[in-house]
């Protein structure tokens, strides 16, 4: 009995992270549709498992003279993620909260700027899930 419990625990410990990764990958493949052909993918994959009001954030340098597309997804439908773009003084440059949780937005950058993107699940829509951010830029 004890061995069975141990084996079950090991199996769960191995399989569940794999399932969580697979979940993120599935969401990423859905999210990729927002990085359309006009945009070159930046070659990186940003993800985090979130529960409740946890917030994922990452630093990004946006180069002047470039238009970036930021796509943020969780679950298999759009609109489950709230994301905001803040400058180094924490001024909010954009938040999709004001636009019905739009899953993607373009940032046209005049001068190079260091920003932080914060992302949270919309608590009215998801209690937990994998948050995926994808970035592309226009030539």
């Amino acid at each position, binding site marked *: 009995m004890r061995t069975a419990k141990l084996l079950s625990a090991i199996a769960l410990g191995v399989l569940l*992270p794999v399932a*969580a990764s697979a979940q993120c990958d599935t969401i990423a493949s859905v999210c990729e549709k927002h990085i359309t052909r006009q945009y070159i993918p930046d070659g990186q994959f940003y993800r*985090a*498992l979130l529960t409740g009001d946890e917030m994922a*954030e990452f*630093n990004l340098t*946006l*180069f002047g003279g470039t238009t970036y597309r930021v796509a943020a997804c969780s679950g298999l439908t759009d609109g489950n993620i709230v994301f905001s773009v803040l400058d180094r003084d924490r001024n909010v440059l954009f938040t999709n909260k004001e636009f019905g949780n739009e899953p993607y937005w373009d940032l046209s950058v005049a001068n190079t700027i260091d920003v932080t993107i914060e992302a949270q699940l919309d608590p009215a*829509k998801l209690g937990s899930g994998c948050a995926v951010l994808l970035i592309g830029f226009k030539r």
Partner: protein
Amino acid sequence: MSVQRTIQWAFPSVLMLALLGCGGDGPASNGTTGGADTLDTVVEQRTSDVMKVGGRLFNVPSPVQTALLFRKLGLAYDKALMLPVDQVDKLAGRNGKALAMGMFGADLAYATIHKDGTKAIAGLGVIERLSTELEVSNAFGADLVDRFKKNVANEDSLLALNGMAFRAADTYLQDNGRNTVSVLVLTGGWVESLYLTVNAAAGKNDQAISTRVGEQKRTLDDLVKVLEQAQDSSLATVVTELKALQQAYAGVTTSYTYEKPVTDPKTKTTHINSKSAVTVTPEQMKAIAAQVNRMRNLILA
């Protein structure tokens, strides 16, 4: 001062994630903690839970963007700056190969932008070989090479393929808990981009180039932080050299003035008009270039 801890997921939460596939619908529940770390993500406590994305808290500018800048500035294409493809035979060890994979990726973007299909295909062959040796070959398999060859005359497609392939590699490495390899690939690409930048403009004293070099300061700081967090003794040389580069960057100054952005909901675009400036003196550029050259040689030694 923030306190960092490894995020611990409650078993029920993870089970729910696994079973629901797309996350739990409905209002957030109060998750408890105390289970297995599932994705090596790290939480930084502030007023609410703030998490580094994928165990990494930053992005590294795409080498493609740097290559595009070269063309915009009309800098001459210099094949000799790129890594010789036979360099790959001299590489030993996982870290060196991961760094080199990123470096060849930057060279691939450089060759693509300058429409050097022969060099690009050769570089892609090396990346494919390195990806196999690093067990990331799903991202750079024969299919990608075929697609690359078929699109060799279409620069847009090649650049998109480059980005997609490196994203696939990044995804695969993160899925398999190999975040250090992932960061080393990014580091290699970043170092090579910087190497191409400082050498393509050597002696030209070009303001746009020195500005772009100066704008890399935060990325450098982030790379050092994340590599230090890995607490991997095999990364000591890389970290030491990046820290030496930080010294060269120490006097680089930046300024920033907030300007209210303008958002156009119709085009789903926000125009960010804040002003920024970076000052890099010629002496600082020389010091940065010297350290970048030294670092690249060490990586390849």
